[in-house]
């Protein structure tokens, strides 16, 4: 069973590529609201759109009568479900794109159209806390959602015309509109709070405190022309630079809320909650100053004048340890597998005590006689060395010029495709084969038999490929075919053992035996 499990894992690993295309498919499905329909629909949909590979497999096994339709899809379904539940959904970053009012005018009337999506609304709420607050205050008591966004778009449109005086005039008439037109006080407050935490080496605000030249009316006038505005218009002035900085800051911070973007109100509330959490974090974070000064002293050192130091070791952090180790195991097995399928035969019944005793004897022997004997058999060592050298030199000869090219690319196209096809079909068969164990029902037994027959047909085909290729590729091809044969061998060995066990246990010969 142990070997079987490992093999399953190996298969699982190899199947990952396939899964991806399936996930994409499923996404497509959900988006088209087809998910709830019957399986038949799905199947036909799959058949229509699935890549050629799956189609070929399907044709080969389902139409070939080796697997039933349900069996073929069942294994895939399971993989898909498991996948979905195990991995958390990836969090998407915010799009680094500014929403600007690009009015779509039809050119005939004075009507202007804007497009707002939940994504854009989320962005607006994140970048403009005043709008968020206004939404919570106004909707739905004072106005409907639609009215709110119409008003907001109107304010944005006024800003885009850069006519401060007009904006002020409009704001004077409509106090709700004024909320959008005025400068965002919440942002200003936040800035004042944040400025205390910035890195002192970039803190230009502190310079203001030391600048005795740039008092009002002192020093030379700067060349920059400042447009003078009446103080009543001052709160309505807004610059594009400000928006740009705010946008970039929000994108940098990333998506803070993890809610469905559909409902505007929940988005706004969630954003407020995260802001509050941030605030309380800051208050509790007392050793910030310490951290900052550490940081400064670290970066003031000139690194290349410093003598060599121990390399800084970054701690390895594995998000999902199971994922990591699971994928490592098959690799290890593969490496072991090269020694032949006889892993089992090495297992002997030695108790720990005996093993310890013999080990101690060996050690004492060495202490007495020294390390006269070679640790390894010379012949074996030579064989391995020769094998390796040959292998390396031959692959080097072919692959030396281009590291990106794989062995497969060098093969003739027909051979390559054939090999790929066999690889996937062997995978498919093995997957079904191993998933049928332990055999509990007649049905499973019949399935295993069918599969075994199909598998036994693969052998001659592989042999055929090996012989068909030119001699310079033969070695490469046999290297490629080798793991497939091994996997099949393991399956057959298991099958035989199982059959014997069964016959020994019950004495009853199952019908349809070989």
């Amino acid at each position: 069973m142990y070997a079987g499990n490992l093999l399953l894992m190996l298969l699982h690993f190899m199947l990952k590529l396939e899964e991806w295309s399936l996930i994409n498919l499923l996404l497509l499905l959900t988006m088209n609201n087809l998910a709830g329909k019957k399986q038949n629909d799905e199947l036909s949909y799959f058949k229509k759109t699935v890549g050629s590979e799956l189609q070929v497999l399907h044709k080969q096994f389902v139409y070939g009568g080796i697997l039933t339709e349900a069996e073929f899809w069942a294994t895939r379904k399971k993989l898909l479900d498991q996948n979905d539940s195990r991995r958390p959904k990836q969090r998407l970053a915010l799009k680094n794109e500014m929403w600007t009012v690009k009015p779509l005018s039809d050119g005939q009337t004075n009507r202007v159209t804007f497009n707002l999506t939940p994504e854009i609304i989320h962005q607006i709420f994140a970048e403009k806390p005043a709008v968020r607050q206004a939404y919570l205050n106004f909707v739905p008591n004072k106005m409907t959602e639609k009215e709110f966004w119409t008003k907001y778009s109107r304010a944005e449109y006024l800003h885009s015309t850069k006519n401060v005086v007009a904006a002020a005039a409009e704001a004077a008439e409509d106090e709700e509109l004024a909320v959008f037109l005025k400068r965002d006080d919440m942002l200003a407050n936040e800035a004042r709070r944040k400025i205390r935490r910035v890195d002192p080496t970039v803190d230009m605000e502190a310079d203001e405190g030391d600048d005795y030249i740039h008092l009002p009316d002192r020093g030379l006038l700067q060349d920059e022309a400042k447009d003078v505005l009446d103080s009543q218009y001052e709160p309505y002035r807004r610059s594009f630079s400000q928006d740009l900085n705010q946008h970039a800051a929000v994108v940098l911070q990333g998506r803070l809320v993890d809610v469905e973007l559909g409902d505007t109100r929940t988005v706004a509330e969630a954003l407020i909650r995260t802001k509050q959490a941030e605030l309380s974090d800051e208050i509790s974070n007392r050793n910030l100053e310490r951290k900052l000064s550490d940081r400064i002293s670290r970066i003031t050192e000139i690194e290349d004048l410093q003598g060599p130091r121990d390399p800084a070791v970054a701690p390895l952090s594995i998000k999902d340890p199971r994922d990591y180790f699971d994928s490592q195991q098959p690799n290890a097995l593969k490496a072991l597998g090269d020694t032949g399928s006889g892993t089992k035969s090495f297992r002997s019944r030695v108790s720990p005590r005996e093993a310890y005793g013999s080990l101690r004897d060996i050690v004492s022997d060495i202490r007495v006689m020294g390390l006269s004997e070679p640790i390894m058999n010379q012949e074996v060592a030579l064989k391995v060395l020769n094998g390796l050298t040959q292998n390396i030199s031959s692959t080097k000869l072919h692959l030396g010029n281009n590291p990106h090219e794989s062995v497969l690319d060098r093969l003739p196209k027909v051979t390559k495709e054939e090999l790929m096809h066999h690889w996937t079909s062997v995978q498919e068969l093995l997957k079904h084969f191993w998933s049928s164990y332990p055999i509990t029902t007649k049905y499973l037994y019949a399935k295993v038999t069918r599969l075994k027959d199909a598998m036994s047909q693969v052998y001659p085909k592989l042999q055929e490929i090996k012989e068909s290729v030119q001699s310079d590729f033969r070695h490469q091809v046999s290297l490629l075919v080798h793991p497939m044969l091994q996997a099949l061998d393991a399956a057959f060995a298991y099958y035989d053992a199982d059959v014997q066990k069964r016959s020994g246990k019950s004495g009853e010969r199952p019908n349809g035996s070989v």
Partner: protein
Amino acid sequence: MKFQIEDVTVYFPYDNIYPEQYSYMVELKRALDAKGHCLLEMPTGTGKTIALLSLITSYVLSKPSNPVKLLYCTRTVHEMEKTLAELRFLHNYQVKHLGPSARILALGLSSRKNLCVNPSVISAENRDSVDAACRKLTASWVRAMAIENPNIPTCEFFENYEKAASDAVLPPGVYTLQDLRAFGKEKGWCPYFLARHMVQFANVVVYSYQYLLDPKVAGIISKEMQRESVVVFDEAHNIDNVCIEALSVSVRMQTLEGATRNLNRMSQEIERLKATDAGRLRAEYNRLVEGLAQRGNLPITDTWFSNPTLPEDILKEAVPGNIRRAEHFVSVLRRLVQYFKGRLQTENVEKEGPVTFVASINAQVGIDQKMLRFCYDRLHSLMLTLEITDTDEFLHIQTICDLATLVGTYARGFSIIIEPFDERMPHIPDPVLQLCCHDASLAIKPVFERFQSVVITSGTLSPIDLYPRLLNFNPVVSRSFTMSLTRDCICPMVLTRGSDQLPVSTKYDLRSDPGVEKNYGKLLVEMVSVVPDGIVCFFVSYSYMDGIVNSWHESGILKEIMQHKLVFIETQDVVETTLALDNYRRACDCGRGAVFFSVARGKVAEGIDFDRHYGRLVIMFGVPFQYTLSRILLARLEYLRETFQIREGDFLTFDALRQAAQCVGRVIRSKADYGMMIFADKRYSRHDKRSKLPGWILSHLRDAHLNLSTDMAVHIAREFLRRMAQPYDKTGAMGKKTLLSQEDLEKMANGAGEMLF
């Protein structure tokens, strides 16, 4: 490491040293030995600051009989913090190797705004209101009243500090502003006054230029520094501008209105005082008869800005009789304000010298030169007598008196310019009267005279012979060092054309050409996709930057840039710019990558480093010339031509190129660092412009990189970045050594003067 330079043992906190750092120290030591001034140019990214600090501290350690004090001047507070951090690193090393005898006291000094720990004071918005809020709690008469009436608030930190009296000292060590605040909070002492007090005893003081150059501040803070001090002006390429700004004043309509309000309030106060406490006014009158020499006896909290002119220019004589009485003085000021109002009514631009201006004041409102000269001190005395604490309200009248005193004192090197409107916006009336100083040597002269050694150093001081002329001094050492590079870690390029082969420039006729804007945009779009981490862009002015960014936004170029990197931008609001910079750094740290748009001559260009991954590429869009139609600039150019025989064109190019060099020089910090610099303007390819760049940039500017188009520049950038990613030998094994160890230095000393360059 530890090594000898002649008779001085230098303690250097690293295991290796760059050869140019060593030579820098040798030259600096010669200047200190000669007790003279020096001018040293060394490229950025070669560890100037640490070389300078370790030589001077080691010099003092080697000669304990001659304790030299170091006054280290930085331009900004964050540079102050950086310098102190380096000094702390050095100090720890020296204490480790020499024991407690190497202990020194080093501290940074800044204004109340940056040092105050009293929460009720620090909440005020700007520096002046913090100062005023502090005075309201600590002025001597407030404290005197508080003793009688416990309801009058005082500052507990200051009271504790006063109570501790002579016990209130800082133990030896290196204190940044943050450390001072923390120490003050812990002890309950006011860090500002503690620092002001400790400055006299400290071995190293790090503070802003203005504490030495601006006579108003220097008169209070720096007057007690001994002659045996070494003054260092770091990043001093702009020192002439700081000097002339320190002595320039401008007056607008708002100033005059504010001054009138101030005068009204003062009249009321005088009336009130006459009724309640006439004795105080009489006492003041008597004091004034004896002269104004009483300043030295003022309690530390009552000092305010001192006279805007230079110490030796203040006459040691009694205040003229006609402004001794408070009400007379106020009416003199009223007449003066009235006169200025009249001058601002003008329709045309007027320009005159101080002498004619004073003569015209005398003729029209009957205030002579001597009265003008005493205005500032007289005002100061009056405000003390009236016990005015909200000094931030009285800035306007202070400005007027400032101007009067300067005009009454100096007959040369200044001019008065009255403009009825801004040249660029003739339809908006905005009259302004400016007193501008043209002679940088005026402000810095007392520094050269008072202190035995003044070191002026920066990454860009080219051409190095111009500075002694501008500042009017004779350096004993004047040298420019090149950079020995292990590999070509800087890559300057001159881009003259866009991909469409049309020239790019910010010259006036091409500036708003949409083709140029597009080509500039395309250059950036290409670069953001090639260069990792941070990119910095400098534009010639705020208005140009706003214009081009808006047009990029409209044409969709900005959107393309945003697909690769985040975009941050410098604005005239300092708080916002600081936050943008902080976010920019964070974006570079986390690998997201960002672009920072900034302005040459702006605050960011002046003091922020974009070293390592914070800046792999800097693009200078255009040549940052000053606005050449400005009257102030024209007047200054005329003065320079007449006095120093410096041609206008030469000065303008020199000034523009030093700004450009300053901008691009911010990308590199050490030899392990690397960065590219693109000068995007066709004018840079001309020899007369290019040759004004500092030597360390020129030596890496290959002929093949002098006339590039966008696609060629992108190609070069790709190649360069690939090359920089390779591992290399830090010690520079082939040919020249670029990293010296202690052994190397010892060998050199024995080998007797084997020159490195």
